[in-house]
């Protein structure tokens, strides 16, 4: 089976004005990557690392400076319109809906744009409305939607024509916990039923953990890591953090197996312990803590993506 995305030596340079001088900036540098049908790939990196530029080249919006890219077997720039029928893209920051019109109307226009037969349009719209719980705001003009509602509508708009490849650029940015959760559940279910290939950029480690089975890390336009999430954790040694809130002020919790005391606050009422998810579990660390002191409450902090990326970047220099 042929790849959904295949790039070879993909490079894009920009000319930037730096005061009176102009200089060349390489946003994507010699990127060679292959994504197979059905994969779910998280594409992560710092701001300005070249994520959006890559996506723009994959989708035919931006012309590469050099190298080649094939998406869904098509050349994105040359076959832009044919490719547009096979991919669905959500740019979290840019709406593809008609701002002044009801949500429903945007779906109708998009269905016409993608030449969906009336029966398919109805079935697909109904399905998405149900699965993304949009019935309550179908008649609301887009400009009046909450961010969570709008993102659901954006995702539905990108999926209306049942694309083979779905590209999400920061789909959960700014969403509250519940909205994030719903969106992730929907995407997981979509992949299970439709086998859609998913490529997403994000700053949210939770997105990557729950949605992706492969991670690409990009640093200054270059591919810094390509592999699964567990491997990413191994490579970077990024740690999870158990935060415990105790019943009484306690001395620092030193010597918990496979965990490291990070800090204490309020005379030891609140303490932070780092542990490596590869060697132990949150439950084991918690059990060891609970043996020593009375715990009222606890939370587990995931390594944030900036931290993981920073570690990868640091390891490369």
């Amino acid at each position, binding site marked *: 089976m042929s790849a959904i995305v295949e790039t070879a030596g993909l490079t894009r340079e920009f000319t930037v004005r730096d005061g009176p001088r102009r200089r060349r900036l390489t946003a994507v540098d010699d990127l060679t990557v292959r994504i197979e049908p059905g994969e779910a790939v998280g594409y992560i990196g710092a701001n300005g690392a070249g994520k959006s530029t890559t996506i723009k080249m994959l*989708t035919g919006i*931006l012309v590469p400076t050099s190298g080649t890219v094939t998406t869904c077997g098509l050349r994105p720039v040359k076959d832009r319109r044919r490719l547009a029928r096979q991919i669905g893209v959500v740019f979290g*920051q840019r709406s*593809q809906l008609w701002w002044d*019109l009801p949500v429903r*109307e945007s779906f109708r*226009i998009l269905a*016409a*744009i993608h030449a969906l037969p009336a029966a398919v349009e109805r079935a697909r719209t109904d399905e998405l409305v149900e699965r993304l719980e949009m019935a309550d705001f179908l008649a609301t003009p887009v400009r009046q939607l909450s961010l969570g509602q709008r993102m659901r509508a954006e995702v539905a708009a990108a999926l209306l024509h049942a694309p083979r490849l779905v590209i999400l650029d920061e789909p959960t940015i700014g969403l509250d916990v519940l909205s994030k959760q719903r969106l992730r559940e929907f995407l997981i279910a979509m992949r299970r039923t439709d086998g859609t290939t998913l490529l997403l950029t994000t700053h949210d480690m939770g997105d990557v953990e729950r949605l992706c089975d492969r991670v690409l890390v990009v640093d200054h336009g270059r591919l810094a890591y390509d592999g699964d999430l567990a491997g990413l954790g191994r490579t970077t040694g990024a740690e999870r953090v158990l935060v415990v809130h105790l019943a009484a002020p306690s001395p620092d919790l030193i010597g918990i197996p496979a965990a490291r005391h990070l800090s204490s606050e309020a005379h030891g009422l609140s303490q932070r312990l780092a542990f490596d998810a590869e060697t132990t579990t949150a439950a084991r660390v918690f059990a060891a803590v609970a043996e020593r002191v009375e715990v009222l409450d606890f939370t587990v902090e995931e390594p944030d993506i900036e931290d993981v990326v920073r570690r990868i970047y640091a390891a490369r220099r």
Partner: protein
Amino acid sequence: MRATARVYWRLLRAGIRRQSAYRLAAFGGVAANATFGLLKVEVLFATVRAAGGELAGYDVGRMSTYIWLSQALLGSVNLTGRTDIAERIKDGRVAVDFLRPLDVQAAEITTEVGRALFALIPRGIPMLVIGLFVGMAQPGSVAAYPLGAVSLLLAIVISVATAYLVGVAGFWLVETHGVQVFYLVVSGFLAGLFVPIRLFPRWLWVAAQATPFPSMLAYPIDILAGRVGLAGALTLLAAQLAWLAGVGGLGQALTRAGRRHLEVQGG
């Protein structure tokens, strides 16, 4: 083919519905257009009377038609050079346009024409009512009405397609505001918004003909006011079609070239 027609029909309707969402803005437009219309009545009627009751084919009745039709079209014919696509290029939303299996130029023009057609109702009809009240000349032949209607539609499409050119200049210029303001000043004048182009000195009239602006306003009005006969009307329609082909083709070429030049602004 049918699917394509369906797409553009939807986009046209989207434009109409978008415009209909802004009824309050239309009121402001009506008030401004009516005021300036009455001002033009004062000045241009006096000019016609001073010339002995007829000037360059306009008597008072035809001048009235000219004034009120041009005021009626102001909400629909784009003489400002302001476009949505200019904004979208500037802030990078144009990326979304390129992600659709559509011709970007055709989609944009269709949507804008939809908006313009809707604007005829809240912005156009009140001007015609005032015009009928003041008294307007009617064309000599019944054929002038359908020809005028076609010419009017062409005028709207040409104006939208020409303003689109200003917008896509943004592929090369980071800021198109200067170009747009220049366009605003020149287009209204050469379209005959303030003074019918027939009253221009000959050299200026010739110069105006070398631009698409008269075909956005002066031509349909000359047909509907009966200032030109049947043959004249057909000549004007032919000129409009030529301008449409010209600005349409240029827009198509600029869109293609601009896309290769595009450096989408912002993340």
